[in-house]
């Protein structure tokens, strides 16, 4: 055994250094661990300042001792490579380990150990931890806003049906795959609108479900006898025609009593709120802002100077102002621009404002994709004799959109994160509801729980969206 130089750990005394270093490191971690979990201070006999710094010093010496290159022990080499490359990294690693150890117990106790879950009044919340009872009691308000309790099944039903209808794409066979784009761009939003309008809002029934159902059944039955060549056009036209025929020309009086859906109370949009409103707004803005943005991206790349300048003006205008002023505009300025007897609902105005705002960002993202495509693609499409629209729909846009999936996902994420701003016009989605609940005299002092709850929900939504976009990007990645 050679002489040990403690200032220079080397391989010849590997075992000594390894045991000594690990022991010191272990002691330092143990000290912090005991301190944070059991509030025991094993170095309490030392003066305050040294006692405070001791774990760091011990850990640092320990890590210094075990920093031996090419020791031959796999785990040790990995450790050295990842957290212990030099003195600076060793100190930072130690600090992070200590911070994590120190912050686990308070967080755990606030979230779970000292928190109160049971009961349904403020009295159970006496501990130092979180009062999840508050969330439990206010859950309906956070989810549905001021929507009447008895009617909330309408929101649930609509969302479940829309989710089912939205997942059609996964089950579609190859035969129907070509209609999916049409379905998602035109039909699905229309169905969603019908659901929102009739079910959630309980809008004036100018569409009678009874007629609609009869028309649908009849057209499906007749549809069996239609040659498959015309089936698509048939289903595009005939059900609506049948519906109008039924409603206005035949059986008018007889059918009106038969199964007309009544009992759906009108719930004005001011009462909507909570997380469901977040979903509704995000959904519609997402659907609207994409085509508008695409149109303006194409307009900005257009060869016609006037169209180009109008597009540039539109895009730069919306990108230059904060969303909050746009919402202000939709709330106080926009009604002035409309005829006096022409009323547009607050929620609809909001959706229009957010859609136009985000459309400008989508337009810039898509323009990036269009610019990134090589000129050869345009020239090849033109040399095949394609016109402007055919070239863009079949050659340019599919490639450009594929390129900008991350950018579009970021814009959509920003959209979801921007929805709380609708408090400006007096609509209360989940964050707005939290602020309302916070001021309730019976439940004062639970702001923290509410914000943590909303933060967790938003985090899950946004993180899931970003992961999904990443998967989408990988799926459509083609080598170029």
């Amino acid at each position, binding site marked *: 055994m050679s002489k040990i130089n403690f200032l220079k750990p080397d391989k010849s005394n590997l075992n000594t250094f390894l045991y000594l270093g690990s022991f010191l490191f272990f002691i330092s971690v143990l000290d912090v661990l005991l301190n944070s979990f059991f509030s025991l201070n094993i170095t309490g006999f030392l003066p305050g300042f040294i006692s405070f710094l001791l774990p760091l010093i011990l850990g640092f010496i320990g890590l210094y001792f075990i920093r031996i290159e090419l020791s031959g022990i796999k785990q040790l080499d990995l450790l050295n490579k990842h*957290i212990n490359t030099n003195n600076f990294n060793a100190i930072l690693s130690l600090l992070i380990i200590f911070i994590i150890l120190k912050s686990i117990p308070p967080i755990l106790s606030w979230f779970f150990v000292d928190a109160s879950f049971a009961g349904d009044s403020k009295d159970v919340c006496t501990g130092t931890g979180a009062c999840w009872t508050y969330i439990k009691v206010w859950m309906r308000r956070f989810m549905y806003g001021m929507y009447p309790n008895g009617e909330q099944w309408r929101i649930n039903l609509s969302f479940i049906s829309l989710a089912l209808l939205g997942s059609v794409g996964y089950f579609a066979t190859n035969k129907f795959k070509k209609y999916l784009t049409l379905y998602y761009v035109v039909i699905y939003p229309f169905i969603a609108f019908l659901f929102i309008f009739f079910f959630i809002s309980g809008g004036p029934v100018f569409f009678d479900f009874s007629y609609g159902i009869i028309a649908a059944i009849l057209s499906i039955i007749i549809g069996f006898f239609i040659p498959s060549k015309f089936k698509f056009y048939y289903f595009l036209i005939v059900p609506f025609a049948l519906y109008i025929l039924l409603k206005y020309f035949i059986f008018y009086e007889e059918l009106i009593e038969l199964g007309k859906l009544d009992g759906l109370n009108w719930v004005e949009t001011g009462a909507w709120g909570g997380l469901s409103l977040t979903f509704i707004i995000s959904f519609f803005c997402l659907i609207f802002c994409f085509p508008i943005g695409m149109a303006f991206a194409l307009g900005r790349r257009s060869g016609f100077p006037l169209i180009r300048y*109008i597009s540039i003006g539109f895009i730069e205008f919306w990108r230059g*102002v904060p969303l909050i002023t746009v919402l202000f505009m939709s709330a106080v300025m926009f009604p002035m621009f409309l005829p006096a007897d022409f009323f547009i609902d607050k929620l609809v105005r909001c959706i229009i404002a957010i859609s136009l705002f985000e459309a400008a960002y989508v337009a810039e993202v898509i323009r990036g994709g269009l610019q990134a495509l090589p000129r050869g693609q345009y020239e090849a499409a033109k040399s095949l004799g394609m016109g402007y629209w055919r070239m863009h729909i079949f050659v340019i846009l599919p490639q450009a959109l594929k390129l900008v999936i991350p950018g579009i996902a970021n814009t959509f994420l920003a959209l979801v994160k921007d929805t*709380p701003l609708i408090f400006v016009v007096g609509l209360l989605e989940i964050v707005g509801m939290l602020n309302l609940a916070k001021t309730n005299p019976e439940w004062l002092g639970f*702001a923290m729980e509410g*914000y943590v709850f909303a933060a967790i929900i938003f985090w899950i939504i946004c993180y899931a969206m970003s992961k999904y976009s990443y998967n989408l990007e990988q799926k459509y990645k083609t080598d170029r």
Partner: protein
Amino acid sequence: MNFKLKDIGPQLMTVIAVVLVFGFFTYNAQVNMENRGIDFGYGFLSQESSFDVQFSLIEYDGSHSYFRAYLVGLLNTILVSVIGIILATILGVIVGIARLSPNYLINKFAAFYVEFFRNIPLLLQIFFWYFAALRALPLPQDAEAMFGISFLTIKGLFVPAFIWQNLNVFLYSVLAAIIAIIIIRIHAKKLQETQGKQIPVLLISIGLILILPLLSFLIGGVSLSFEVPVLKQLATTSFIYEGGVSLPPELIALALSLSLYTATFIAECVRAGIQGVGKGQKEAAASIGLTPNQVLKLVVMPQALRIIIPPTTNQYLNLTKNSSLAAAIAYPDLVLVFAGTALMQTGKAIEIVSITMFTYLSLSISISLLMNWYNRKIAITEK
């Protein structure tokens, strides 16, 4: 002839549609304003505003004009934006570099920070800091002094104020130092290009910027003293600090959340920029005998900055626009003072909202023009 029609047709139709929509809106606006008896005009800007603002950088009270209220709001917006931009840049650069660290713990810690803060809506973060976190601070009478001179309380942060004498001499000395540094840099560059000599520019610069202002203290008659905030009793249970500078909690919450949120995006920009410099560049630089510091300074950073700066400026703009969320926690920024209180008092919706939007618009368009110019200047001219 036919060909030209094909060109003009779509343009004409678009223009007609735009003109129709705008015409429709203006016509309705005129009719509506006539019906309600509102007259259009910006004359109200010089009228007495008769409302007070909690926090303002310039002297202001109800007897001043609406235009001055607008200035107060604008200055407050600029103040919180500048604070936010400085903090966000510092934090963003640190986190961005930490994201690239070979140290597993640091790397993951930075990644956690980025993923955590950028997936939570900014408004929620502002509310959290303002209504939950800052409300847990002590009352003024219970606050412990930080470094003995400043107090962080529920009513805001109270820090000592600087009291300068002959401030202008000090400022001139700083200006002189900056000009001297620029001249030395130009000279050093010339020396490097013509004779290949290198002089330690950084050391000389640091020396100049320290020594010249110091000289102004010794010779120029500049003196600096501090006014420390002192606790004062207003009523039996109400205390406040007097003297010094007080930063309201709204400002703290806003600056904190804006910088924490924007720093995540800046961190990603920094990471992308440094990763965007090819490995070959570093290896080539090392192979011609540059030291690691020289590689970083002469090869990596110039190329990385070219990638980093445009998106980062975009983030600065976003931060400035996001500072309008101040209205939610009653920090008197442009939106709250002007588009909120002033609008409520005058009822001049179109004028006030248009001025507010125009202010933000001119701000962001001027910055993006600057950015375009910069991009053209630094763009690599490819073959």
